[in-house]
């Protein structure tokens, strides 16, 4: 693209120590794959520890499969979380961009990295993920940006979540050094069987140890050595002789370990975990001296360290971010952090509260730029970062200088991951507009922290302008915001497909007296609409009418044609029991069907009603 005679921007960059880049397409974002991952780690670590904030941005293989799976204004935080959870569990992260940055007055100093990920099953254990879903539209869009799928799949960095790592450790059956926690200090009374067991093992160990230390062995023939090995059950551990003692229970493990303490001058006990958890055997390794013993212990430690590093892969970076405890800036935090939690921490918990608690342990401060935006005023339909930046540029004078210190980028190919830098830029702008930037760098971090704290950890806020769908289907809704209680919302389905909200509203208007009062209709997808009643209580009247025999007139006609209605609690049940049918109408039908045969039905509805009455969702005005 760059003509030959023109010095490429990359070349220039490599000569200066600092560059200020305003054109997003020239931002030097370091692209990281399997090949340069290890060598970049220490550099990233330094940048993370010296930064004020860390921006993250993900490129996933999809987000929502059906229109109604998208998080929308009629979602409560709970249903929004369940939708995000469903997506996070199915789709995959292909690119993970992180950008540690510093804010200095009107300057953002950023160190962007873009990691290419692929969930390769390095250990042949079906991890990190057995399979994942791709949405063709996402892949096509990535292809348009010039994304290299071959690099990603051949050379992407794999990873394991924390939860997976701990199961892997057990399953790999690598010998573990005995730490003091596993040694129980209390010595329970020995039964006869125990004593017999110990004595038998002790004599075997003694025998074996003597045979090994016996210098005569060296002169023996190979055949004899190998015979001896078979007879004594000795084997090699690295270069050292070792012996495996089979155990049948955790108690025997304790007994063996206790017994081995008598030989602690030269023997190092190791625990061989069983595949299904627990212990398979205890291995005693013979060392020649105290020094050798320490050496062995160190060897074991480095071995474990290397192994862990290999197993963790990209999660090393997540761990670094988590360990730094720096505030994290994201653009669509609910979406991004459900993905992060499910891929790098542990499977997602069943509800939002547990999710927030679990996430907070790893990332204490998460700031969503969308939430900051809300303090500025009614910014509508800002799902796109570039559009938001342009919007702010027109309205506020808050110039932000982007400084991206040189990172020699050997990869002359396409540069991906611009979004993360844009998030930094947007965040910088917002901070300056909202005056939460410290004027001087010297001012303490505390000030910043307290100012930022106000915005942290809000994943899904009710006046959710940022979450507002930009689809045409909600055209005709004006922009006044009003909170609507879930109680006043009724889901309607079973009408002719491809009906418009306007026609449906007309049809309803004359059908029953509840529709004499103000109400509004909005399509959720082609199969289902929501009706919002202006006056409290009418929704219940309507639902009761729908279920009674007294239904009459035009409404009866519509019901006979298949019209159905359900309250918000049915929708919540759809989300919580994972009925992710492609049409919401089918999902609601299923939820009703499974609900009808539950004996505790009455109990459950009562509960959700209590829950609902405190629950407000944000809907556009009626």
């Amino acid at each position, binding site marked *: 693209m760059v003509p030959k005679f023109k010095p490429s921007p990359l070349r220039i960059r490599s000569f200066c120590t600092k560059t200020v880049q305003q054109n997003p397409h020239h931002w030097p974002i370091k692209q990281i794959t399997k090949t340069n991952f290890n060598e970049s780690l220490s550099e990233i670590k330094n940048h993370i520890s010296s930064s004020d904030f860390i921006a993250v941005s993900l490129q996933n293989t*999809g987000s*929502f*499969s*059906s229109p109604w799976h998208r998080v929308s204004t009629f979602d409560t935080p709970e249903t929004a979380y369940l939708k995000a959870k469903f997506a996070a569990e199915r789709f*995959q992260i292909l690119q993970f961009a992180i950008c540690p940055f510093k804010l200095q007055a009107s300057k953002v100093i950023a160190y962007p990295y873009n990691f290419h990920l*692929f*969930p*390769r*099953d390095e250990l042949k254990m*079906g991890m990190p*993920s*057995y*399979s*994942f*879903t*791709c*949405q*063709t*539209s996402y*892949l*096509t869009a*990535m*292809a348009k940006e010039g994304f*290299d*799928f*071959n690099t*990603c*799949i*051949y050379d992407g960095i794999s990873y394991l979540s924390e939860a997976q790592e701990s199961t892997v450790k057990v399953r790999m059956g690598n010998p573990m050094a005995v730490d003091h926690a596993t040694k129980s200090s209390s010595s329970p009374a020995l039964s006869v069987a125990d004593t017999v067991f110990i004595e038998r093992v002790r004599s075997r160990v003694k025998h074996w140890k003597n045979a090994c230390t016996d210098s005569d062995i060296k002169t023996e023939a190979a055949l004899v050595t190998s015979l001896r090995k078979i007879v004594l059950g000795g084997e090699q551990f690295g270069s050292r002789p070792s012996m495996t003692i089979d155990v049948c229970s955790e108690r025997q493990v304790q007994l063996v370990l206790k017994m081995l303490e008598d030989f602690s001058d030269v023997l190092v006990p190791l625990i061989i975990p*069983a595949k*299904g*958890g*627990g212990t398979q055997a205890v291995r005693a390794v013979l060392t020649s001296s105290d020094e050798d013993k320490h050496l062995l212990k160190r060897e074991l430690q480095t071995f474990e360290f290397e192994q862990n590093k290999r197993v963790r892969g990209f999660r090393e970076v997540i761990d670094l971010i988590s360990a730094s405890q720096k505030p994290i800036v994201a653009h669509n935090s609910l979406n991004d952090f459900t993905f992060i939690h499910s891929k790098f921490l542990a499977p997602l918990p069943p509800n939002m509260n547990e999710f927030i608690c679990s996430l907070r342990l790893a990332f204490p401060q998460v700031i969503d730029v969308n939430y900051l935006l809300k303090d500025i005023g009614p910014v509508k339909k800002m799902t796109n970062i570039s559009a938001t930046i342009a919007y702010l540029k027109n309205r506020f004078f808050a110039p932000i200088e982007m400084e991206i210190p040189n990172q020699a980028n050997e990869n002359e190919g396409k540069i991906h991951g611009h979004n993360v830098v844009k998030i930094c830029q947007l965040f910088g702008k917002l901070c300056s507009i909202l005056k939460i930037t410290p004027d001087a760098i010297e001012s303490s971090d505390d000030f910043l922290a307290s100012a930022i704290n106000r915005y942290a950890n809000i994943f899904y806020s009710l006046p959710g302008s940022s979450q507002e769908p930009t689809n045409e289907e909600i055209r*005709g809704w004006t922009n006044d915001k009003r909170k609507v209680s879930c109680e006043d919302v009724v889901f309607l389905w079973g009408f002719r497909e*491809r009906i*418009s909200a*306007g*026609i449906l509203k007309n049809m309803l208007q004359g059908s029953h007296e509840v529709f004499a009062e103000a109400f509004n209709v909005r399509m959720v997808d*082609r199969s289902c609409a929501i009706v919002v009643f202006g006056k409290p209580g009418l929704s219940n009247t309507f639902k009761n009418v729908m279920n009674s025999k007294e239904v009459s007139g035009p409404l009866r006609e519509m019901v006979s044609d298949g019209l159905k209605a359900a309250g918000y609690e049915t929708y919540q049940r759809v989300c919580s*029991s*994972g009925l992710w049918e*492609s*049409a919401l109408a089918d999902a609601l039908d299923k939820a009703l069907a*499974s609900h009808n*045969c*539950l*004996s*505790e039905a009455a109990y459950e509805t009562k509960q959700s009603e209590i829950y609902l009455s405190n629950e407000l969702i944000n809907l556009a005005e009626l």
Partner: protein
Amino acid sequence: MKKRWPITILYRAFSSSTTSTTASFPLKHVKKSNFDSALSSLRHHVQAADFVAIDLEMTGITSAPWRDSFEFDRFDVRYLKVKDSAEKFAVIQFGVSPFRWDPLKQSFITHPHNFFIFQRQELPLDGAAYEFLCQTTSMDFLAKYQFDFNACIHEGVSYLSREQEDKALKHVNSTYEDESLDSWHSLKEIRDTHLFNIPDILFAERMKDRLSEWLGGLLRNRDGGSEVQPSFNDSKQQFETIFFKMRPAISLNGFTSHQLLLIQLVVRKHFKDLAYLRVSGENSCSQNVIVYIESESDKKMLMKEVKDEQKIDAEMSIKASIGFRHVIDLLSSEKKLIVGHNCFLDIAHIYSKFFGPLPLTAEEFISSVNKYFPHIIDTKILLNSNSILQQRMKKSSTSLSKAFSVLCPQIALGSKSTHLALQPSVKVEVEVDDIRSSNWNSGVKHEAGYDAFMTGCVFAQACSHLGIDFKQQSSSENLAHNEKLREHVNLLYLSWTNGEIINLSTGNRTSESLASNKRKNHYPKILFECIVIVWGFPSHLKAWDIRECISKVYGPTSVISVYHVDETAVFVQFSRAEMVSKFLDLKGSLDRNNDPISVLHPLAKLLEGGNTCAASYETYKEICSSTVSKVLFADQAKAVGIKWKTKLVESSDKTKEHESLRKVKAVNSDPSCGERTKNKNFDDVSNDSSYSQLSSDEIIDSFYTREAKQI
């Protein structure tokens, strides 16, 4: 083969185009750009061909480990597993290699095509987004063979299935039928409210003036002079006078959508002889025009004209997105003999991707496949079921690459190598883009085009071993009707694991007979009514523990085998069918009684943790039929909505009651209320209702006495 590796890698890496050098295997790579030309040439090749070999590359095989093919798969379960795989994964490469016997050269001529395919959502169809599953290991496997994912996603040929096409056409039809007057109505009710603010009113007034000015000028011109209104055309190019369908019209440019709405309102309110239209222009961006109409009937005519045109456009774009399906339609309409290697899954993929959703049962599937493809031959079956060929294969494995190297060494190694004239060999020449070659290096395994080529070569050679003389075979005769092949046509492995073969033309299922010497049945005959599936047991229990645990209750010969479905579930095969219900009854009662006595029961070890569930084989089938795929079977069962712990079965000989009971069960999917009613129903339905309860009690009793004796 391995030694040739570096060359092939280089080839793949550097030549993404279709150029073929002598060093590499000549293969025609087809992508979006050269699809149309490739299709027309392929059409001729297929029409002239004696048979067509095919091969597919997919993004995965099994959506969960427990969906893998097992020896314990009954044929209907096997079909459900294949169905699941074909529905979830995508086909990303399709190899088609038509083979034609050339009597002059006394050799086969083949034209191996390698299509990269990738379904894009090109039509604005509503509903779910197109998505597919990727199995991580399969992707890694493809990567190992240097699969070019970029070629596939960036430049792959898209397609529409017949069903999708029908749906899209229907959608177009209904759109252009409905929209007649609806759109005007709905517009009115929403938009009338907008004229409340002053700027809007002023703008509307201005537009009204301009339009009447234009209209006045137009009428004046028609009456008198022919000059165009200069004053009007000057106004910023926003109003451009054009001719639309032989009528004078204004094309509106540079207005905001809100302004366009206001103009639309003005036109409708004040001008009887103007019509506002929104049409899609040549370069697919929409154009807003105001057309002069002479009368109401003229308006109707105009509307109809525009609508018809739009409809045709829409239909054209649907036709244009059929894409790769043309190849499948070609294969189907030519009724040629299709040759594949272990191709049941391939056929299922072809069906679900290019025809429509897979039927619910294997029988329906088979009969409709037979309609679309009347003659299919599977080389893997051919090699295994014929003794002559087995001899030729020297009992080696019947994997494609192995069969190829054993049966066609002269082709596998390239013709330039010394002729191994030990066996009569069929000559094969490759022609790509009118360049023939009989000289090449081996291609890349697991590239669909090359795999299809290998399959075809194996088939040709196998035919010759079977005594089919191509020299005497007249070109008009269909190879599928050859009597030496007839017994092999339309047989497919339903499952390679247990050698079950299905006949596509009759629907009959047979177990592999001839090859049984190679495949010793490790397992005794599997009786599905003797099988219980158990899941959710403590993770440290292994097959052996479970066997021991159950044997303690029913005796050492009661359990024939315990087979791990995955780490969370096992099949337990009992020696007799009635033990299934006995076991389930016993387990059910143990679930309910949580007293110290049941804790001492030998089964308690299995039930530890309280999450152990058990049911008959039918439940396993039900779980397999779900569209959900969780990695672990226990999670899957939960996701399918199973909340009970034990599903009792009726005695198997009462077939009549079978149905009624099943219905009852279907309703009672909930445990707490279900368990009770189910038991009650047992009493109602079965005559010896006490039987099941009694037998389990007996067992418990006998156990206690034994226990007592020991103490």
